[in-house]
């Protein structure tokens, strides 16, 4: 590896930073130029992420690229590191960013100031959080992505957004303070903030220091779990995501995965099986919290009439599933969870974009009417009296396309065959039931494993019910509604995300091998530690 390839790792951070800064200075009238710059930046990010993923996967079992900023050795300087997990998440982020940008081109980019600059900073924060190798820079990138997300959440303004934004911002500011307390406690005990160095020092840590370190890690974990919206820390999520403009909500579906990523990375790095006395720290909490979050999410999707809130509930279910899967602490489950993370992030992003298109044809009173109909059990008679008028009415082409997209999202999120959600859930269930692999040794399923298994299946059922009900109400029941006017540039990003999900289904073999290799290297962090710490130049 030499020349420009060596510097590929910094591109996903530097490019959006520079372009975003230029965009802030440009006048709002130059939105065409801004859009072109944003598109170029995201396409470059996509290419870089794909190249990094190919590099990481080709590098064998312990493939890791360490990028030393300023070429200082790891414990003093700042490092970025690219392994399979980072490369995968960069790729998903770039895909969602592309979809959000394309969708915003139709009209959302001109609904408020600085959409393109904020999107670039958001992507920079996300990419940085996935790439950084030390805790304090993780904090910095978290703040970058949060600051950009405050702007994006309020994009388009309006009472609902500002009210939800107020809760969202105060919640996340408080969580950032917890983040700082956790980071400084860990530094005070261990004397380093580099994740790999920390993992190297942890097994040799005296027993007297351990409680303090574990307390620091727990406080840090709470900050991540607020971001990942674990119950009871995640009540901010549904109003905020439901109120946000669709392109912002689509990119936010990746933002809640950042918390999951941080938990996954740190739990396996610091409290993996070979770290001495602290091994398995926090796993029980993650498992329990994850399962409760799944239940809460399932109740939320069943209890709402509102499509954006339904999508918010899906984010909760997805977060809960991932956290519980991390808590399970098995390679096979983690591999399935990574597959799930990718497909659910893409499908939820597509769903958020789709919802606005579906809502476009509805009159404003329709939602209130729907609630009233449900509450009083009214309306059935009327429909019957209308007789067979509905039969034989052709569904307009636009509605058919939207309905197909909605169906695909529902299938992925509920985890039904034939799409990628099913493969992901199947892989996780398989990992829970056969920890040692199929037919090898007795299957010892832990109580937590059973709880996760039941929660997974029931949440899939709840999602299916809720999505079916929403689909019938929005697509079938209201035959004389106006057909929404949908531009090609608006349906294209939805199709893009859904096609990636379909692609993941068709190429499930290679993708799953990538995920399993990622999980295997995450569960054996020794190589990672050795490469970051022990290779001075």
């Amino acid at each position, binding site marked *: 590896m030499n020349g420009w390839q060596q510097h590929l790792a910094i591109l996903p951070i530097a490019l959006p930073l520079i372009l975003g800064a230029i965009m802030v200075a440009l006048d709002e009238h130059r939105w065409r130029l801004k859009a072109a710059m944003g598109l170029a930046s995201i396409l470059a990010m996509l290419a870089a992420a794909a190249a990094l993923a190919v590099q990481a996967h080709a590098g064998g079992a312990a493939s890791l690229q360490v990028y030393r900023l300023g070429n200082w050795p790891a414990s003093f300087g700042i490092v970025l590191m690219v392994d399979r997990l980072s490369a995968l998440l960069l790729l998903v982020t770039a895909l969602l960013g592309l979809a959000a940008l394309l969708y915003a081109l139709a009209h959302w980019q001109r609904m408020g100031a600085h959409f393109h600059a904020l999107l670039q900073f958001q992507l920079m924060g996300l990419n940085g959080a996935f790439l950084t190798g030390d805790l*304090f820079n993780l904090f910095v990138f978290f703040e970058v992505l949060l600051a950009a997300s405050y702007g994006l959440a309020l994009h388009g303004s309006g009472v609902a957004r500002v009210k939800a934004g107020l809760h969202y*911002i105060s919640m996340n500011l408080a969580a950032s303070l917890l983040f700082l307390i956790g980071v400084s406690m860990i530094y005070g005990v261990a004397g380093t903030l580099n994740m790999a160095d920390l993992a190297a020092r942890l097994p040799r840590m005296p027993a007297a220091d351990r409680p303090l370190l574990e307390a620091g890690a727990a406080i840090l974990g709470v900050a991540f779990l607020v971001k990942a919206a674990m119950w009871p820390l995640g009540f901010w999520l549904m109003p905020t995501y439901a109120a946000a403009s669709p392109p912002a909500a689509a990119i936010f579906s990746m933002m809640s995965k950042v918390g999951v990523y941080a938990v996954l990375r740190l739990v396996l790095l610091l409290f993996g099986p070979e770290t001495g006395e602290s091994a398995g720290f926090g796993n029980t909490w993650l498992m329990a919290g994850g399962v409760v979050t799944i239940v809460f999410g399932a109740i939320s999707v069943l209890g709402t009439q509102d499509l954006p809130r339904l999508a918010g509930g899906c984010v909760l279910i997805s977060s809960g599933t991932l956290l519980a899967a991390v808590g399970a602490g098995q390679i096979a489950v983690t591999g399935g969870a990574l597959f799930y993370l990718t497909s659910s992030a893409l499908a939820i992003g597509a769903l958020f974009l789709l919802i606005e298109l579906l809502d476009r044809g509805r009159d404003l009173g329709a939602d209130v009417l729907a609630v009233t109909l449900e509450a009083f059990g009214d309306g059935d008679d009327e429909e019957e009296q209308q007789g067979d008028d509905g039969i034989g009415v052709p569904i307009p082409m636009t509605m058919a396309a939207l309905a197909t997209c909605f169906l695909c999202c529902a299938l992925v999120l509920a985890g039904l065959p034939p799409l990628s959600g099913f493969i992901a859930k199947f892989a996780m269930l398989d990992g829970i039931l056969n920890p040692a692999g199929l037919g090898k040794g007795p299957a010892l399923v832990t109580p937590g494993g059973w709880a996760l298994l039941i929660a997974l299946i029931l949440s899939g059922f709840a999602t299916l019910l809720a999505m079916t009900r929403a689909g019938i109400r929005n697509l079938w029941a209201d035959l004389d509604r106006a057909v929404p006017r949908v531009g090609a540039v608006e349906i294209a990003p939805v199709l893009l995300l859904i096609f990636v999900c379909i692609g993941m289904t068709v190429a499930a073999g290679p993708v799953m091998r990538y995920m399993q290799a990622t999980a295997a290297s995450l569960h054996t962090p020794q190589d990672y530690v050795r490469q970051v710490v022990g290779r001075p130049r």
Partner: protein
Amino acid sequence: MELVLALAIGILGGSGVWLLMRPRTFQLIIGLSLLSYAVNLFIFSMGRFPVGAAPILEPGGKGDPASFADPLPQSLVLTAIVIGFATTALFLVVMLAARGFTGGDHVDGRPPR
């Protein structure tokens, strides 16, 4: 010295958490500011603070490296202050917008009846 610092962190943190639970946005932002002061002092204290020792060089000598305060937490505090300042300013803007939209300064838009 330790006692003074610990009390300062405790009082700031306690007041901050109390104000954070209050229903008015003004109380909220003051609470967050107090909490961030407490956190900044906490980070600072993680670098140890030798009392009465020379910063780096002692008169006529090199000084003892073991008695130096760790400079890294101090730089972390600087970063945290800058970020905290920026986010507080941003939050203030959102609060003013909320005040304009809802006509009140209650965190939920209007007080529950």
